[in-house]
Structure formats: structure tokens, C-alpha cells
């Protein structure tokens, strides 16, 4: 049985298929059409999006891909739409004074919980490994350490609930 070379192509070649309309042959005679949003570099799985009444997503597992044929490239509007398919809705803009208040309140809360936190420009730096950017909600925490990220997100979440802030 001939092994399809799709999983072996590598990230640089897969990147060329992004934002193209493709036809994917998979499994036993299945054929799927859609805009290619991404290819998972770990499993070579293909993420296809089609815009209809609802935005329908189909993911074809890398090991099942038989062939991928490019039909056409996306125009600017479609490319823009594709980029925003999985992004969370943009958070409302807060004025600088309110942002500063939120930042100070969060810094005080973390310090009360014995967490080392410093102000770094507009952001808060926690324990040297986690950054919190505006508007300082649990979703704005960035860190490469999963355990610290989880702990800090929970703490920030407690403060958000206490102050009855709406989640952003």
C-alpha cells in the first residue's frame, strides 16, 4: 500500500496551503472541500473551513489524508475572515485611567497573596515568569509555565468575581 507523502511534507510546505481552497481526499473515498486554515505540525491534520449558514469546520486527520489539491487562493477579504474564525471576540477598549486602576488593584491582590509582582511598563510581571497585559483579566496572562499560569489565572478569576466584573 502506497503511503501518502502528506505527513512528510513539513511545516514550510504545509504553510503554502494555508488560505487556499483545497480538495482533500481521505480515508475510503471521502472528499472534502474547504478553505485550509492550518495544518497541525504534530499530526499533519488539515483544518478546513466552509462559510455557509454557519461556519463549518472539518478537520481531516493527517494519517487519513490521501491527497490534497489546491483549487484557488483566498482573496484579501476571505483571508481576513479565515484569520478571525477562531479568535476570541475583541475586548472593549478601556480608558487609561480605568486600566491603571485595574492594574493597581490586581497588583495589590497578588501581593496580598504573597506573590512577587512587579510593574513592567503597562504590564505586570509575576515571579519573573508570567506577564499580565491590559485589561488584566485571566485571559491576558502569558507564561510558559503551565502550573504557575493556572494558579495565577485562578487568583485573577477570584478577584474578578469578587469585584463583579464581567469576564472579558
Amino acid at each position, binding site marked *: 500500500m502506497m503511503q501518502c507523502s502528506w505527513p512528510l511534507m513539513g511545516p514550510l510546505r504545509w*504553510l503554502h496551503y494555508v488560505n487556499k481552497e483545497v480538495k482533500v481526499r481521505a480515508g475510503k473515498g471521502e472528499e472534502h472541500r474547504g478553505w485550509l486554515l492550518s495544518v497541525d505540525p504534530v499530526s499533519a491534520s488539515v483544518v478546513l473551513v466552509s462559510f455557509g449558514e454557519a461556519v463549518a469546520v472539518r478537520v481531516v486527520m493527517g494519517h487519513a489524508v490521501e491527497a490534497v489539491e489546491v483549487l484557488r487562493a483566498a482573496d484579501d477579504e476571505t483571508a481576513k475572515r479565515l484569520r478571525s474564525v477562531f479568535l476570541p471576540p475583541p475586548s472593549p477598549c478601556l480608558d487609561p485611567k480605568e486600566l491603571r486602576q485595574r492594574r493597581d488593584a490586581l497588583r495589590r491582590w497578588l501581593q496580598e497573596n504573597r506573590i512577587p509582582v512587579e510593574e513592567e511598563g503597562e504590564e505586570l510581571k509575576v515571579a519573573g515568569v508570567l506577564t499580565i497585559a491590559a485589561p488584566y483579566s485571566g485571559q491576558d496572562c502569558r507564561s510558559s509555565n503551565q502550573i504557575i499560569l493556572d494558579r495565577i489565572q485562578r487568583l485573577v478569576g477570584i478577584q474578578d468575581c469578587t469585584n463583579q466584573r464581567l469576564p472579558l
Partner: protein
Amino acid sequence: MATPVPVLRLPKGPDPNSRGFDPNSPRFIALCRTSISSSAASDTDSEQLQKEQHARSVLREGFLRCLLSMTNKKVQFQMYENVKVEATFGASDIDVLNFQVSDLHTPIGVQKEALIRCQDVISFTFDV
């Protein structure tokens, strides 16, 4: 008002270097024969490797966002032997080998919690 929880010391997190992409880790060797490692050719050219790594992270981020938006949604799985099942998506493991799902509708009944082997899946679909 919630009382502050004193944290004396934050624990050291897991080693960030062996999370599914390291081909020499025991987990990878045991489970991921079919997972894809970085190409050997790029070892010789650091600029090429850098481009490949950038492409890899862009693609992986797109895929992870797809998985994130799938959480708690109804997903239809197309599997081999013409099997179609529907379930509520829970989570995936890092190597995309297993999916954790709830309320899996099978021909013999509804399974409250289940693990689906990705090797058995051809494709799956959901609405955003």
C-alpha cells in the same frame, strides 16, 4: 469577600523541553511512531531551521485555537468501517493521539465519557 489564600512558594513547573516535540522522550518513542519529527535536512542550515520552526509554531497555534473553539461543542466523527458518531468534545492530548469526549452516541447506546483513538478517526466536523 473571598479571603486571600497565602501562597508560600510556587512549584517548579514541568520541564518545558520535552512536551511532545522531543523525539527522544520515552513517551514519544512509546506512543508516537506516527507523529512527525522535524526534518533532518534542516539541522545543517540554522536559517532554514528557524524558518521551519516559525512555520511550525504558526501552524500549531492555528490548530490549537481550532481545538479550543471545539470544547463543549457537538462534534461528528467520521471513522473507519463507515462508522459515524457524535459526541461533545472535551479535550485532546498533546500529540493528538486521543480525544476525550462526553455523551458519545454509539449504535449501542450513549457513553457518558469516552476516549476516542485518533488513529480510528478519518475526519471530524463541527460548527463554530
